[in-house]
């Protein structure tokens, strides 16, 4: 009898615990604490239709999730989709031209409306509509033929040809049809929708609360999200001045800062509360060598001269003297920071001025007139080395000019303001028009996807006839062209990695790209904020796990 009583009592206790647990689960989650983040640039808009700015895109990890995020190892983590489509799970068709996305049936918009496949169809329609002055139609315009809602929770995307970069470029966001369709119907465009500035309905661990222009953006914990946040709010403050951002980080007025430079690391970490984390978002600083016979210096057409240029440049000393070598080591290929596509077998071109001299002599570039610069057939070996007006790059130019002079290569240093530097052929862009021999900048593909093949395709060479061409180096190598075209339609990851390693090897042998330094983003994270795992592709992907102490009463 007594034993029965005990059993009964234990059962009663157990039952009450289970009930309590269920009750807790059903109740609204409680949010505590604030994460303060500083942005040095203010997003132009919060609507993904109207800006491709990085600082706008990264806020979407809080309030507007796409099909998936990328974790700290840049591996996809499903958000709105139940799984990543593969050929095995039937998500990718045999011909690679159809991708089927299965949506979760338990996610709702922050206002409680269910997410459906129609939202994705609407998003595609809005991107492609001539009524909306959207910032970018890539890749929807060139690669996608249709987006259909097969059923309430299935989206089917049809491509004109297999499109390898689909994982990182398609449906990285979705628009709330139930909010925006009425606006579009009434105004004929979404250009002036209030949602662009105040997207009160979103889909993520936080929901938009307010945006005061020039000051701050606030996102509050969203109880309607499947992975509820722990924080009460995320406060993004716009601090345009780098030195002021540094002061705010040191003073503890901000928990997360970004776009820091490596010379700030020691100062920021001095107090012990701040950790500076290097997270690559794929950007590497490098040289793009002009090999276009119509525009380049004649010496640039000789691969041995190009190799001599690389060997004559001591990039190891440059990263030591001008940067922090541990954070910014010399990189080899364009894809070093886009793992696993960079070829691990390749080593940076060494610094070997003697070999450089030998190669130049062999190529017939010798100093015949004794002016200190090599020449051939009356043409001096003076190369146009261009970049934008960033101070660090100007310093690198000066050091390189001095290093080259030791082997008899002259440097004509030119700097363009960023808007001119990136201009297209018809707008007199110096790169697009080939008015250079070596162009320096930091670039990336569709990170974490490596796709950037237009830069080296024969068909993309920019010219008066092809002013939109993205190949500003005039590269046209049959084997490279074939490999680039093949990778663009190869959906199998392993096969694509092999292709990229071949591409990197070929570009290395042809000396089309010379890596200067790895250029990861430097973030500061205050230890007040816990659980932060930054990712290069979607930095705040685990914001729902962040915790911060509640403010003192």
């Amino acid at each position, binding site marked *: 009898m007594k034993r029965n009583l005990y059993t009964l009592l234990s059962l009663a206790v157990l039952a009450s615990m289970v009930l309590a647990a269920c009750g807790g689960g059903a109740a609204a989650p409680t949010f505590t604490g604030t994460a303060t983040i500083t942005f040095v640039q203010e997003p132009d808009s919060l609507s993904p239709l109207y800006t491709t*700015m990085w600082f706008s895109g990264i806020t979407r990890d809080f309030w507007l999730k796409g099909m998936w995020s990328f974790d700290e190892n840049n591996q996809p983590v499903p958000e709105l989709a139940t799984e990543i489509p593969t050929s095995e799970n039937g998500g990718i068709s045999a011909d690679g031209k159809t991708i089927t996305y299965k949506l979760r049936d338990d996610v709702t918009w922050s206002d409680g409306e269910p997410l459906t496949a129609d939202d994705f169809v609407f998003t595609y329609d809005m991107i492609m509509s001539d009524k909306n*002055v959207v910032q970018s139609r890539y890749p929807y315009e060139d690669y996608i033929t249709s987006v259909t809602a097969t059923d309430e929770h299935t989206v089917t995307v049809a491509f004109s040809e297999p499109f390898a970069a689909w994982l990182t470029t398609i449906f990285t966001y979705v628009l709330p049809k139930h909010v925006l369709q009425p606006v579009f119907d009434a105004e004929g465009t979404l250009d002036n929708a209030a949602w662009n500035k105040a997207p009160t309905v979103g889909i993520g661990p936080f929901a938009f609360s307010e945006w005061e222009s020039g*000051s701050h953006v606030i996102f509050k914990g969203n109880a309607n999200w499947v992975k509820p946040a722990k924080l009460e709010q995320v*406060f993004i403050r716009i601090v345009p001045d780098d*030195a*002021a951002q540094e002061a705010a980080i040191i003073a503890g007025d901000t928990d997360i800062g970004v776009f820091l430079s490596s010379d700030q690391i020691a100062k920021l970490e001095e107090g012990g509360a701040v950790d500076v984390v290097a997270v690559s978002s794929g950007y590497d600083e490098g040289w793009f060598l002009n090999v276009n016979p119509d525009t380049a210096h004649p010496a640039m057409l000789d691969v041995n001269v190009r190799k001599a240029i690389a060997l004559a440049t001591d990039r190891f000393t440059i990263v030591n003297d001008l940067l922090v070598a541990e954070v910014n080591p010399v990189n080899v290929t364009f894809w070093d920071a886009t793992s696993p596509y960079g070829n691990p077998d390749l080593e940076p071109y060494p610094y070997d001025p003697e070999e450089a001299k030998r190669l130049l002599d062999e190529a017939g570039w010798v100093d015949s007139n004794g002016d200190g610069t090599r020449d051939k057939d009356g043409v001096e070996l003076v190369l146009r080395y261009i970049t934008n007006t960033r101070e660090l790059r100007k310093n690198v130019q000066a050091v390189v000019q001095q290093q080259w002079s030791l082997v008899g290569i002259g440097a004509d240093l030119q700097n363009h303001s960023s808007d001119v530097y990136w201009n297209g052929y018809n707008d007199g862009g110096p790169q697009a028009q080939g008015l250079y021999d070596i162009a320096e900048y930091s670039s990336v593909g569709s990170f974490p996807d490596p796709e950037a093949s237009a830069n080296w395709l024969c068909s993309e060479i920019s010219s008066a006839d092809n002013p939109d061409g993205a190949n500003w180096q005039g590269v046209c190598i049959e084997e490279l062209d074939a490999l680039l075209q093949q990778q663009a339609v190869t959906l199998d990851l392993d096969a694509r990695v092999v292709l990229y390693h071949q591409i990197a090897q070929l570009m290395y042998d042809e000396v089309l790209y010379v890596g200067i330094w790895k250029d990861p983003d430097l973030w500061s994270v205050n230890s007040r904020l816990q659980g932060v795992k930054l990712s290069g592709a979607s930095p705040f992907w685990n914001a729902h796990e962040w915790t911060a102490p509640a403010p003192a009463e």
Partner: protein
Amino acid sequence: MTTYILRRLGQAVPQLFIISIILFALMQSFGDPVATLGARTPPKPEDKERLRRMLGLDQPVYVQYLTWLVGNDWQKLDMDGDGVPETPGPRKGILRGDFGNSLVTRRPVLEMIGDRLPNTLLLMITAEIVIIGLSLAIGLYSALRPYSFFDNFVTGLSFVGFSMPVFWLALSLMYLFAVNFRRWGLPYLPTVGMFDPQVGKTPWELIKHMVLPVTTLAIISIAGYSRFVRASVLEVLGQDYVRTARAKGVRAMAVVWQHALPNAALPFITLIGLDIPFLLAGAVVTERIFAWPGTGRLFLDHTERADFPMLMGILMFIALAVVVFQIITDVVYSLVDPRIRLN
């Protein structure tokens, strides 16, 4: 008086018109707004071309100016790029009160200026009050005791204040009072922004966040203003009517307050009158460093982006304010100084 004001306003119309043409021409050398749209991810060439067409940037400069001035809502535009105009133009033009939309944020220019103006006015008016009050006090005191220790000391300090670069002063104050004071365990001020998100937007937060930017602005300007007050008071004190007043036995303080100061204030009023429009323009460097969301930063940010509708909006707004406040200054002048007649 009314005729005078009306005549001056009438003159202002062609003045503003010419200013707008000159400014619009200058904007053309600012660079390509479309090129900077993606910041670190520059737009793709085909997107650039489409955006230029849709935003009307492919039109000749005079067409863009006319659209800005009188709008394009009677025209049809080619939005789909097939060469056939089909979509009615959305602009009404500045003459009908439409300042246009920013090219980078796509929001109405007037709305964006309206967002920032209260913040700028709050900062600038507070700073101006501090500046006027302190420079009057310092200038007057110096003038009454010329070449005394205080005068020499303040003169020296003015030169230091006057020659300090704003960004350096602002950052130094920030590091001293916000970073180091906190480190040393002393009462400290916040670094940037208008309030602490963990506390919220309270008046006390706002005051704390205003101390450093206001101090920065004050230090820079008090230097010049107090010298100005000192010089004009000294000049007036040397005038015959002051000597006469003193000879009549008027008390020293009464001479200063009733005779010297009102006369010395005239040029000071001119100075302030000319300053007020620029209060609307905000303090570019101070706002940037203290992350104060004012019009100065708005102007700076959009200059870097070559966002001409935004820049034209702000500049025309300031030009209008300059014209209006010049008229007001002249009117105040006539009220303060009975010798001046406007008609």
